């Protein structure tokens, strides 16, 4: 065991810091720092800059145009990018669909879709959840019926994150209603400009438009857009969810958020002293930092094993639960630190809201963030589902 970075890893860290300092646009970093909404253009600009450096698809093999970073390199990026207030990489094409196509897609699909993810030609979103199929995803009803060279898709998806920006959606659809639920699902790629696709916004409790409903009415999808085999979609979905989860330890984001809490707590006055010196508040901060340090090592340890060929399923569930709890605790500390100034509602994405927050200490929309990030323990398989997986794998018969 050796917890220190190798000379190569240190050199990589330096290179990354220089890159972030020189290339990350300051207007975007400022938005991230203040917790303001990013425009589609902000995210696309950052993707293009990373892609220009060959660092956009960090987990993809080089053969597909990826950076093929090691787990440690990805960890270093995660920490440095968050500390520099870089936006997170939009995961739908890069972390979710990309690996599925690489493992299960045809050569034609790989050649066509992967480069378009890298250069930003396509913005992907995820069509998994349905109103009646959340935690019980396999009960999904959105159906695709074969008609010559097409599937005809009818149904509804929900919680489609950033679907308002997307031109493509990868969907789980029911292609066989007469077999065991998991065995009648297929994985389809659908062009959102096809007649019959309708996107409706869902406004979240912090006032932001982040997720959507997507409705399909007689949407004709070429059979060539089926990934892998018909009725094998559940296998691909599980593979994708594992990829989605490994990022959810969220170490970089948690570290950056905790640093922001400390900055705020140094500026906030409490009984004539900085809040950070208040024993109760300081204890809360210390407690979560202690948990976070251990979680950061767990994250590296588990991701390294996965890269070496280990099965990350169970451990990914553990990281997701612990990572979300820690992040939510930090968000809770931020709203506490803001004091009465946690109450104003400020979001430039929302009509009628003020765009500058009156707080002289620049707490940012701490309470809005606290509420928004309640999603962390709900999406991508709720923490209850993750605990179920952990219990089942360890006590209910092998993995």
């Amino acid at each position, binding site marked *: 065991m050796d917890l220190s970075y190798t000379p190569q890893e240190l050199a990589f860290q330096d290179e990354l810091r220089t890159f972030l300092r020189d290339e990350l646009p300051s207007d975007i970093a400022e938005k991230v720092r203040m917790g303001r909404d990013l425009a589609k253009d902000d995210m696309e600009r950052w993707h293009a800059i990373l892609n220009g450096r060959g660092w956009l698809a960090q987990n993809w093999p080089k053969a597909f145009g990826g950076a093929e970073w090691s787990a440690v390199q990805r960890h270093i990026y995660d920490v440095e990018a968050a500390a520099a207030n870089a936006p997170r990489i939009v995961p739908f094409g890069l972390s979710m669909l990309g690996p599925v196509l690489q493992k299960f897609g045809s050569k034609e699909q790989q050649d066509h879709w992967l480069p378009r993810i890298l250069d930003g030609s396509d913005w992907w979103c995820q069509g998994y959840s349905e109103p009646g199929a959340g*935690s019980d995803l396999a009960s999904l009803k959105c159906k695709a019926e074969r008609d010559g060279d097409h599937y005809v898709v009818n149904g509804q998806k929900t919680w489609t994150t950033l679907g308002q920006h997307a031109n493509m959606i990868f969907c789980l659809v029911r292609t066989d209603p007469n077999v065991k639920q998991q065995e009648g699902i297929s994985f389809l790629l659908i062009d959102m400009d096809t007649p019959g696709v309708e996107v409706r916004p869902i406004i979240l409790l912090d006032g932001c438009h982040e997720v959507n409903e997507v409705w399909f009415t007689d949407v004709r999808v070429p059979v060539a857009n089926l990934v892998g085999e018909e009725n094998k979609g559940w296998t691909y979905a599980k593979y994708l969810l594992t990829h989605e989860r490994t990022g959810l330890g969220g170490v970089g984001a948690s570290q950056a958020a905790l640093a922001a809490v400390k900055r705020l707590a140094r500026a906030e*006055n409490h009984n004539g002293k900085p809040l950070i010196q208040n024993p109760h508040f300081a204890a809360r901060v210390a407690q979560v930092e202690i948990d976070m340090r251990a979680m950061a090592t767990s994250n590296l340890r588990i991701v390294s094993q996965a890269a070496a060929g280990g099965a990350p399923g169970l451990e990914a569930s553990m990281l997701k639960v612990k990572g979300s709890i820690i992040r939510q605790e930090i968000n809770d500390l931020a709203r506490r630190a803001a004091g009465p100034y946690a*109450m*104003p509602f400020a979001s430039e994405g929302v009509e*009628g809201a003020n765009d500058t927050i*009156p707080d002289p200490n620049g707490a940012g929309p701490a309470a809005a963030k606290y509420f928004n990030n309640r999603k962390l323990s*709900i999406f991508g398989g709720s923490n*209850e589902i993750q605990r179920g997986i952990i219990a089942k794998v360890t006590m209910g018969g092998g993995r």
Partner: protein
Amino acid sequence: MNFELTEERQMLQDTLRRYLSDKYTTARRNEILGSEAGMSTEIWTELAELGVIGALFTEDHGGFGGAGFDLAVVFEELGRAGVVEPFLDGALIGGRLLAAAGRSDLVDAVIAGTAQLAFAHGEPGGRYDLDHVTTTATGGTLTGRKAVVMNAEAADHLIVSATNGDAIGLYLVAKGATGLEVQGYPLLAGGRAAEVTLDNTPGEALNLGLDAIQNVTALAIVAQCAEALGAMETATALTKDYLGTRKQFGRPIGTFQALAHRMADMLIEMEQARSAVINAAGHLDSDERDLTLSASKNLMGRVGRLVAEEAIQMHGGIAMTQEYELAHIAKRIVMADHRFGDTDYHLERFIELSTA
């Protein structure tokens, strides 16, 4: 001991609950939240006619209540329905200060629902400390900045705290007074507040000081705790219903023990919350007032967070959407912790007072 409401209070509770369940639907509230004023004068007037404001004042001052349990009954119902009209700030705090100052002319108008007030006390950097006042009063004029002043835009009069160098005093400032600037903004959990700056603004001394601020804050804590309790009742009821009706894996999700036990924990903590509000309301005139209020406010902060977070988590995604009732209610519960001292503030205060 007797834990029954008096007949009058029971009637008030019934009337309010009936009116609000008819009138104050999620759709209606969302309409009000989307409006420029962030409140409905129609609702304000009708609730005033039903006695919501009169119940907050003693008979001496033209009301028919004014005790801790009167406040608790009114604000629990307002909280249960998630009413965003600022009765706590616009009527209770300002009105009781004016009553203490003997300004019955204005108090009558407040009780009638025809005048609204704002209490401009907190300052940037003051956090929850009641004695942090740097706004100055010299020769009848006030200069300084006040932070997150609830209802400042709608108020006909502001009651402003300021120091004359020796002591903190309260001053009455009329809407539109010289040098008065009100920069308004919406609040995350509904309603509006403002940053208020005063620049040689004329203010009329009310002959009230720090003790009046402490007394009215005690009333406000009872009201705020009761309001949070009402909102928590709603969150609990919504969650209980949802666990019984939402099906996943072919059965109601409430039949999964992992969720059933957490629902049970919520219900256990709700009993604690109910008792904490009763303790607060019943100790307004006791020697242990401040100790009890700090105990209650701390407990409500803790249980409130638990109830809001667990209600959202057990619902899942639906609770994250603005159009679902729980979204507003959960925000109200958590944001209550940011008024009149949060969980940690009152924990410290309880330690101070209980070890003194």
